[in-house]
């Protein structure tokens, strides 16, 4: 399965990429291998258009971090090709790295140094040829953007998880990368900080035109942040689309219809509901105290058929109430990847 947005060159393209980790070799005599080869990524093809926030979702061990390592060139693909802005990662690694900003899960900040020192170190490695004064100006700008100007002289080890994340992102924005990769950007961060980080990431994409690739297990985060998401499992692409599209297609909308009938069990109403497009199930339950009142629970795929349902029950009783619980992305995720844990 491949996602294509039609824009060329895509910010990121994976073509039939596989990564197989060979089994370890025993260092003692006689030589032998320990364990089995692990296929972390399996013929993955993906295209990310420029200027979007793209979510890479998947259970633990599904291949998200390996995919990032393949994009950054830290790992070499066993098969296939990875391109960033049309450049082959293997052949043009340094050019690719200059266009990438990567924030790993562990943030990789220097805890013993100040926020400013961290950015200065980064500037030395990532801003070749940029005069010192301009480097300092960029550091100031990023500290401002991350809301850390006041704390620039504090040791990073004293920062909260959210501040560290913001600093890590700011650090990677300093060299103005075309593609920003965030591996679990809000891991271990409280909800208040999450909102700040999400707003920051959205701003990068919408106001500054950056392409952002986010890996996450947090489906609320994916929904809040991403223009598009891909779900991978066992190293393979399972599906791709907008968060709304995925939850409507693979999630379940639940409608609760309260109906009062004159003639007891609302059999005709149930039958009419089953005929509505997208409805996957209907159940009824009599109200314990209000005679002739029933609660009909309707499950549906492909969006909310509330209007069609209201029409369907018309004439089979009095519609007292109709509530809709929208399909959720986590339901879609579980439907696509299964409920079994991967540990």
């Amino acid at each position, binding site marked *: 399965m491949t996602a294509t947005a039609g824009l060329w060159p895509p910010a990121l393209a994976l073509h039939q990429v596989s990564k197989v980790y060979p089994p370890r070799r025993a260092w003692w005599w006689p030589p032998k291998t320990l364990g089995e080869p692990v296929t972390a990524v399996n013929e993955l093809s993906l295209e990310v258009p420029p200027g979007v926030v793209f979510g890479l979702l998947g259970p633990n061990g599904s291949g998200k971090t390996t995919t990032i390592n393949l994009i950054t060139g830290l*790992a070499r693909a066993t098969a296939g090709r990875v391109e960033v802005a049309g450049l082959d990662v293997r052949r043009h690694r340094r*050019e690719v790295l200059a266009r990438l900003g990567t924030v790993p899960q562990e943030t990789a900040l220097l805890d013993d140094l100040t926020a400013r020192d961290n950015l200065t170190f980064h500037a030395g490695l990532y801003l070749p040829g940029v005069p010192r004064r301009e480097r300092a100006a960029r550091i100031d700008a990023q500290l401002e953007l991350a809301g850390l100007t006041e704390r620039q002289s504090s040791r990073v080890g004293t920062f909260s998880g959210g501040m560290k994340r913001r600093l890590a992102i700011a650090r990677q924005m300093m060299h103005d990368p075309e593609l920003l990769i965030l591996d679990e950007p809000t891991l271990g961060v409280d909800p208040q900080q999450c909102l700040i980080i999400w707003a920051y990431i959205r701003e990068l994409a919408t106001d500054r035109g950056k392409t952002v690739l986010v890996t996450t297990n947090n489906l609320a985060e994916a929904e809040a942040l991403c223009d598009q998401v891909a779900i991978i499992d066992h190293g393979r692409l399972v599906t791709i689309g907008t968060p709304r599209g995925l939850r409507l297609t693979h999630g379940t909308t639940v409608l609760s219809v309260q109906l009062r009938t004159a003639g007891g069990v609302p059999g005709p109403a149930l039958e009419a509901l089953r005929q509505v497009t997208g409805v996957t199930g209907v159940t009824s339950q009599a109200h314990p105290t209000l005679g002739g009142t029933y609660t009909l629970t309707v499950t549906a795929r492909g969006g909310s058929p509330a209007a069609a349902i209201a029409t369907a029950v018309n004439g089979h009783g009095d519609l007292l109430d109709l509530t809709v619980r929208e399909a959720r992305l986590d339901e879609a995720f579980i439907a696509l990847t299964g409920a079994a844990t991967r540990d």
Partner: protein
Amino acid sequence: MFSAGRDWLQAARASAVKDIRTALTERSTLVQSITLPVNYMIMMVLFVLAGAHDPVAVVMHDNGRYAQQFVAALARTRTCRLLIEDQAQARDQWRQGTLVAVITIPAGFDAAVSHGRPVQIPMAVNNLNEDLTHDAVWAARSAVTSFYAHVFPHQVSLVPAEHDQYPRDTGYVPFLALSVIVIALMVSGLLQAGTAAARDWEERTVKEQLLAPARPSAILAGQMAGAFAVSLPAAVAVVAAVVFVAGDHPAHLLMAAAVSLLTLATFVAAGTAAGTALKDRAAFVVLLRAIPVPLVFLSGLFGALGFQTAAVRDIASALPIHYAIVLEQFAFRGLRTGTAGLGADALIVTGFLVAFAALAALAHRLSRASAASPGA
């Protein structure tokens, strides 16, 4: 071309500054990098002082001219610390076990010597430690020969005719002091560079470097420069102690400085390679404490390599520390203690520097894959 060089220097500088600042905030490493070399220096000096100062009591029942000259001959052997005591004092100390030997000059010593009669010099020896015992016995025998050579030169027909290779004698402590400098340079360089390299892997901060568009050689060179700068004060402190406290002034000042810096750089490169390969500070420090010191003992520490057995010579020839000691001995005292020429020695140390730097680069390159392995 110019721009590439400038960018390389910029990345190397950033890397060096980062490591220097980090090291300065990490008190334990900083303290260790100062104290460990100094500890080795103190340990070696104490070792030598302990060996050269065996307490030997001399009880004089005769204070005549010959008796005095015999005691002077004993003192000239320099292998023991002579304590002139009366019999009661010597007996007490002997019982307390604080003496290696008690030498008694018997009454009538002078008369017997002047009349050419045989004299027995009683010598009680504490044979708790065979090495110290041998020193005391050797001192007594040597004193007899020396005494006769000085007092009755016409009676001793067999005397060594000493022709010195060097214009001045070198004491054991000053000789060893130069080896101590090299040990300090080795420990200081290895410790600082190894812990800095391992720290980056342990704390995962290495990813920032692995994902940078800068050349890995620049980052690595910067790391080494940082470790070099941080370990320099400890090295300078030890050299200063040898020069100003022990009074061992270098004969060739520039060469002494160059050899010291080259030696430090060589061990900084070795530490970077080992730290990158191990990726664990605790493991590195254990290794540092376990391996180098035994190797130092095999590197011509106590004398010229030519004096050693063939096996020791072969082992020493494979170690950079041997060549560094040889170069320091020449730079400070003009001594030639190696088996190759000085130019060859300098080239070999430089070769080790290049080889260790190459190993560090290889370890760094191979480690890139491990940073991306599952669970990393």
